[in-house]
């Protein structure tokens, strides 16, 4: 077993060696510009791009013509949200999203508010999920666009986006879904799922960084205002020379994901459940977000009375991430965990462990042992643990906040 062990698959995944192999010839040998119509170099590249588009479309059961390449999910979300809001702004100016979206959605909404749109940011329930009744209640006659993520990046919960898409369809509201954490991990069928716009990215499904895709529904057709202007590539939705090798990598990653998703998920779920069973034997351990409505890869756990960053330092043989303020430059604890109503202490005490295709049972066992051992050690160091053991209710203590 090689250390450190990578358990941060929601941040990014390694490129599958099979994907990398497929990409290499498109850097050195078939390097043509897919937009070059006058020679074989261009034709070869274009053929590869279209083959990849077919694989990505197949992963979500869409028409290849509904796939537009982007530089990644941040661009995809920007194009979908700004593009639709700006195109449909004469119909209304109200937008709906929710508080635990990724910053690529939240900051885009803030920008649209600066441009004169009005936005509703829905609260989530304690399990991290959007309440459908609250969603319906937020709809106004002038609502033109809603954006709700499929799977939360920090806590892995699966939002009821299928139901929300139906509601939006009935109300004539454009619905965008950020499916970055769901792509290649959940079954997505655009013939059944009524979302108009869907963002996915390659580097969460064992493809390369720097390439993503936006699904744009054709039936009924959704219109967007382009955000990047230039040569009119991608039917005018997104100008810029296509990165053939990246696209080829994304295509191959999508093809493998479709093939292997079911077996991968089953294996990963068993490992995740084993890990949770193991660490939850300790006292004062809390799972953040619903366990039932959750992708199999994610565990987000708060170890009460232990601060997240010091825990991450202690378990440096495993690569995980934390909702603690101390790992962020802003010194604010995770806004996602706070949105669940978790108190700041538990938000500071959280770590996110995300498993993936290359995670082994041996690694998970090692991680569980290491976490248990280090949590115990840090609790011995923690005045809060000592007070808890003395039976003091920490909520009654007058703290000098700083």
């Amino acid at each position, binding site marked *: 077993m090689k250390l450190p062990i990578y358990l941060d698959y929601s941040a990014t995944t390694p490129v599958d060696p099979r994907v990398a192999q497929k990409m290499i010839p498109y850097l050195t040998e078939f390097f043509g510009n897919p937009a070059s119509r006058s020679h074989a170099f261009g034709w070869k590249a274009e053929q590869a791009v279209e083959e990849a588009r077919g694989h990505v479309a197949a992963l979500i059961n869409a028409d290849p013509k509904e796939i537009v390449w982007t530089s990644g999910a941040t661009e995809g979300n920007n194009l979908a949200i700004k593009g639709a809001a700006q195109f449909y702004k004469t119909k209304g100016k109200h937008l709906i999203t929710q508080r635990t979206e990724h910053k690529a959605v939240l900051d885009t909404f803030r920008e649209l508010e600066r441009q004169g749109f009005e936005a509703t940011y829905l609260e989530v329930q304690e399990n991290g999920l959007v309440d459908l009744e609250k969603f319906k209640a937020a709809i106004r006659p002038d609502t033109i666009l809603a954006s709700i993520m499929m799977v939360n990046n920090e806590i892995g919960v699966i939002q009821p986006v299928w139901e929300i898409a139906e509601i939006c369809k009935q109300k004539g509201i454009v619905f965008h879904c950020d499916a970055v954490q769901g792509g290649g991990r959940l079954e997505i069928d655009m013939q059944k799922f009524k979302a108009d716009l869907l963002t996915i990215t390659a580097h969460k499904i064992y493809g390369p960084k720097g390439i993503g895709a936006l699904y744009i529904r054709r039936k009924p057709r959704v219109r967007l205002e382009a955000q990047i202007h230039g040569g009119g590539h991608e039917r005018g939705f997104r100008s810029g020379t296509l990165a053939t090798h990246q696209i080829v990598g994304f295509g191959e990653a999508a093809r493998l994901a479709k093939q292997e998703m079911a077996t991968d998920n089953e294996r990963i779920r068993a490992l995740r459940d084993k890990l949770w069973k193991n660490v939850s034997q300790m006292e004062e351990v809390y799972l953040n977000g619903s366990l039932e409505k959750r992708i199999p890869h994610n565990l987000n756990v708060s170890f009460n009375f232990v*601060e997240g960053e010091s825990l991450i330092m202690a378990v440096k043989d495993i690569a995980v991430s934390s909702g603690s303020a101390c790992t962020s430059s802003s010194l604010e604890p995770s806004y996602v965990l706070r949105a669940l109503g978790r108190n700041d202490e538990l938000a500071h005490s959280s770590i996110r462990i995300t498993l993936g295709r290359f995670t082994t049972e041996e690694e998970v066992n090692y991680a569980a042992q290491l976490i248990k051992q280090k949590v115990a050690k840090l609790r011995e160091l923690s005045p809060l643990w000592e007070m808890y053991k003395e039976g003091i209710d920490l909520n009654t203590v007058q703290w000098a906040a700083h």
Partner: protein
Amino acid sequence: MAYSDKVIDHYENPRNVGSFEKSDQSIGTGMVGAPACGDVMKLQIKVGADGRIEDARFKTYGCGSAIASSSLVTEWVKGKTLDEAATIKNTQIAQELSLPPVKIHCSILAEDAIKAAVEDYKKKRKV
């Protein structure tokens, strides 16, 4: 976060971890910070008959540099008089541990913890 070797040393081998009996007349206890802010330090000093700090203990909930800052000050206060201990400045702690700017508040907390422990002892002994 890239920490200095000194922070990592104190974090991995913290000095003087533990607790003294709070009610003991020779003990001063300082507890600063708040769980909601992500760090709480408890620093205790044991004062000898000569008015010098004989020993110190700490427990800290917080990030690596908070733990290192408190571990360091338990070493520094030993052998000092109460007034000498109270002159330890956060800048000295930050410099010794080469704390990055975003972690300066940890050294401020350690300075406050010393002052709080000294205050507590003085209040107890009415000196």
